[in-house]
């Protein structure tokens, strides 16, 4: 079964590549995503299959809408759809369709139990072995910082790419401005008072999330965003425009490269596996805390820079 689907998968991929007509590409792509989701499900990861199905559905809808707009604009100069009178039946239909969708979903949510044919090999392996392999209490942290650390690094790379793209594709060349538009919140006494109370709690909470990522829910990414929220509060009250943006970007790159170096270091120690478990066992929780701090600071820097960029420079 699974081999047939994988062969079909490759076949579909081979069909898509030479195809030149847009609408056919969309249809083939939707089928391809469906087959991908099916193969994910059969390989024992229903959650990834659901994510794939949702993404393929939305991307197909977006592509179709884009095509429609593009061709309508080409056809009659400017798109000006006339407003039609909505009848009562049509208005009722608007509520019926979501209900029809919601009821089966709800039934699925209640009655669906994954059968025994879904393999839980990896899950069992991770859950039984993470305490001795990596340490910590939170299995999720040990998965994303040890077993799947390269995935995490590429995820962190996304923010670096976002900053590079935003600052290099922008029409404005300067990185900092001396002064700009002030937020309206500073004239609102109630908001300023409350944010002054909340902002230190936010910073403390971000640090707590980063430092306790291996014990409780949380970790570098969430903690970094919470720390960046503190700086956004600071902007809202005091209108700070003298951010050392270049230094923050440099710091972010250094932090990211440090995280990559630590993750890759184990491979060169001759650990034997791709994920350096032998070397992780020596350090256990200190490794988790160090990586969480690095990733948290990196995410905080990236969020600060992006926020500053859009508020101070792109808004003019």
């Amino acid at each position: 079964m699974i081999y047939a689907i994988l062969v079909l998968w490759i076949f579909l991929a081979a069909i898509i590549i030479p195809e030149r007509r847009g609408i056919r590409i969309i249809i083939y792509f939707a089928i391809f995503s469906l087959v991908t989701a099916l193969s994910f499900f059969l390989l024992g990861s229903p959650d990834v299959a659901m994510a794939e199905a949702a993404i393929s559905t939305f991307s197909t809808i977006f592509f179709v809408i884009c095509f429609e707009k593009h061709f309508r604009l080409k056809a009659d100069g400017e798109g000006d759809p006339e407003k039609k009178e909505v009848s009562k039946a049509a208005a009722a239909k608007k509520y019926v369709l979501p209900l029809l969708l919601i009821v089966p979903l709800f039934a699925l949510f209640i009655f669906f139990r994954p059968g025994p044919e879904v393999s839980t090999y990896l899950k069992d392996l991770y859950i039984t072995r993470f305490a001795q392999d990596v340490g910590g209490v939170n299995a999720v942290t040990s998965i994303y910082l040890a077993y799947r650390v390269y995935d995490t690094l590429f995820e962190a790379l996304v923010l670096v790419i976002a900053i590079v793209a935003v600052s290099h594709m922008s029409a404005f060349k300067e990185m900092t401005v001396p002064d700009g538009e002030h937020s309206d919140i500073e004239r609102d006494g109630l908001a300023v008072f409350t944010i002054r109370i909340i902002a230190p709690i936010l910073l403390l909470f971000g640090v707590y999330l980063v430092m306790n990522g291996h014990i409780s829910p949380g970790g570098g990414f969430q903690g970094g965003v919470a720390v960046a929220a503190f700086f956004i509060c600071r902007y809202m009250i005091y209108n700070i425009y003298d951010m050392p943006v270049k230094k923050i970007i440099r710091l972010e790159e250094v932090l990211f490269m440090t995280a990559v170096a630590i993750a890759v270091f184990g491979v060169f120690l001759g650990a034997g596996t791709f994920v350096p478990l032998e070397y992780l066992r020596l350090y256990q929780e200190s490794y988790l805390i160090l990586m969480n701090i690095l990733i948290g600071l990196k995410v905080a820097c990236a969020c600060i820079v992006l926020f500053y960029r859009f508020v101070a420079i792109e808004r003019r």
Partner: protein
Amino acid sequence: MASILEIAGSVLIAAGAILMVLGTFGLLKFKRFYPRILISSKIDTVGMLTLLLGLVVRHGFSFFSAKIVLIIVILLILNPLVAHILSRSAYMSGE
């Protein structure tokens, strides 16, 4: 054997969920900005608070419920503020 506290907590959680569903329905029903912000603040504050209180009652007195109480306090401070800032900026931009 479900104790009285557990039943009370479950009832509170269900009440919070029902309030949220009703609020979502209201959010879809109203079209103007100000009724919508009224409804959304109800969802955030009342529905969420009822749900979290239900969790506290169900779980009893522990470190876990202390964290939830902290979340309740932060929600009580922040949610009205968010609604206030949104409606203020809407008023100022002439909605």
